[in-house]
């Protein structure tokens, strides 16, 4: 064998080994995150550290049933985590802070407890857009600025006899002196608007129709479709696919009783709550969008209702709320 041939053979071997070996080496050094149902420990580990502008590689595998992985408030496609398979995820963070990741496939009654955090440290990419090391403060939710008590009963004293129709209300609303600002809609319950319309000469059902048209004018078909999608994915398992509070887990929640609730001060003064029925007009027509936002942001505090503030973006919550009112108002004809 000639000397030059030997050298070229060695070079080719080294090149092939490094091309194949280097990614394999890095892949095998990425820690594998094991995923179980919440009763068996959820994510392990559930705290992940990362740095700004360094791609974070994660490997996930399920040890029991189908799970999913997504990071809250991040525009990303959720990744299915299947038993016996390893899913690869690469994440990029351009702002420091604590991000919440969560399970996206319903894996049991305690599915929503499966959450973990990614602690991203470092300075943001573009210092001009953000103030130094600190993450941007979250905007104060509307229920706080309005001073709403989101746990107080908010029943509507009066409900319409039939489902209010937005189309019928549109013509009536044209000449009425109505505050059409977004703030007015967000801060008032349908009943409050109905009550304010009492000064006009309209009949009760006409007033309800006007309320429905105001609610419709504050949403778009795209928002409603997005809200419906979010509802089906995240809410329907307990609140029911038709919003009637009779989802597949509603009975399980009642049967699980205290074990399905969590509280820091003991469960003595807690009463088991069943999922809210969104088709119940007394409850829904007495709730303003700001109140519902508060409930969704914060969650049920001890009932089975998760805290969504770290998962949904503000826009997603408003879309969801617009969809919830569509159980009360007829937007079609």
């Amino acid at each position, binding site marked *: 064998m000639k000397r030059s041939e030997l050298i070229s053979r060695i070079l080719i071997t080294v090149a092939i080994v490094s091309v194949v070996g280097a990614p394999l080496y890095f892949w095998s050094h990425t820690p594998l995150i094991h995923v179980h149902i919440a009763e068996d420990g959820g994510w392990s580990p559930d705290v992940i550290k990362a740095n700004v502008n360094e791609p974070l590689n994660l490997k996930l595998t399920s040890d*029991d049933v189908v799970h999913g992985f997504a990071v809250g408030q991040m525009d990303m496609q959720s990744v299915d985590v299947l038993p016996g398979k390893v899913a690869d995820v690469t994440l990029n963070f351009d702002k420091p802070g604590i991000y919440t990741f969560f399970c996206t496939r319903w894996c*049991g*009654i305690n599915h929503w407890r499966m959450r973990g955090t990614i602690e991203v440290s470092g300075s943001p990419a573009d210092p001009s857009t953000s103030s130094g090391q600190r993450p941007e403060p979250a905007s104060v939710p509307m229920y706080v600025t309005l001073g709403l008590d989101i746990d107080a009963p908010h029943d509507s004293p009066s409900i319409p006899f039939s489902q209010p129709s937005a189309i019928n209300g549109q013509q009536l609303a044209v000449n009425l002196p109505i505050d059409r600002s977004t703030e007015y809609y967000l801060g008032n319950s349908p009943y409050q608007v109905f009550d304010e319309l009492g000064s006009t000469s309209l009949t009760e059902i006409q007033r309800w129709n006007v309320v429905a048209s105001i609610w419709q004018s504050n949403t778009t078909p795209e928002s409603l479709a997005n809200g419906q999608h979010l509802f*089906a*994915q995240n809410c329907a*398992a*307990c609140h029911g*696919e038709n919003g009637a509070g009779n989802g*597949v*887990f509603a009975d399980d929640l009642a049967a699980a009783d205290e074990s399905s609730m969590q509280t820091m001060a003991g469960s003595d003064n807690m009463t088991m709550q069943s999922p809210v029925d969104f088709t119940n007009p007394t409850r829904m027509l007495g709730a303003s969008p700001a109140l519902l936002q508060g409930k969704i942001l914060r969650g049920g505090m001890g009932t089975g209702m998760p805290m969504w503030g770290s998962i949904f973006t503000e826009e997603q919550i408003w879309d969801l709320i617009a969809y919830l009112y569509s159980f009360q108002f007829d937007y079609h004809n």
Partner: protein
Amino acid sequence: MNSRFILLLFVMAGLVVAFAPLPVQPITPQERTFRIDARQYAYSPSEFKVNPGDKVNIQLVSTDVVHGLYVDGYDISIEADPGQTKTLSFVADKPGSFRFRCNVTCGAMHPFMIGKLTVGTNNWLYRSIGLAVLAVIGFLPLSSFIPQTKNMD
């Protein structure tokens, strides 16, 4: 009557039982909708019957974890999360009995999560019962013709 003739007779009868076309009753295809509740590790109901040509809608409702439904033979499947009922629609154009099973790993006993779809009557069951009866009856007259081995003293 010799044994060969009787044997031939029974073989002919057997062929008739096995392959004779049955009188087909005209059945107008219908649309049938089934709601199947899926939980770990069973379907409820786990068996259902349709007529050939029926349009079948299976609504799969998962009540605990993500389940699927795969119909063997038809090679069609759906997957349903709790809270998201999914509907599988197909035309039952293949007669016979088909197993359906969960195609999403749903826990330790996942492989045993099965059910049965029956399309039309199970003719092969009745034909094989007929053949078995024929074989028993045929054995009685034919047995007298079997040459007896003589004892060698």
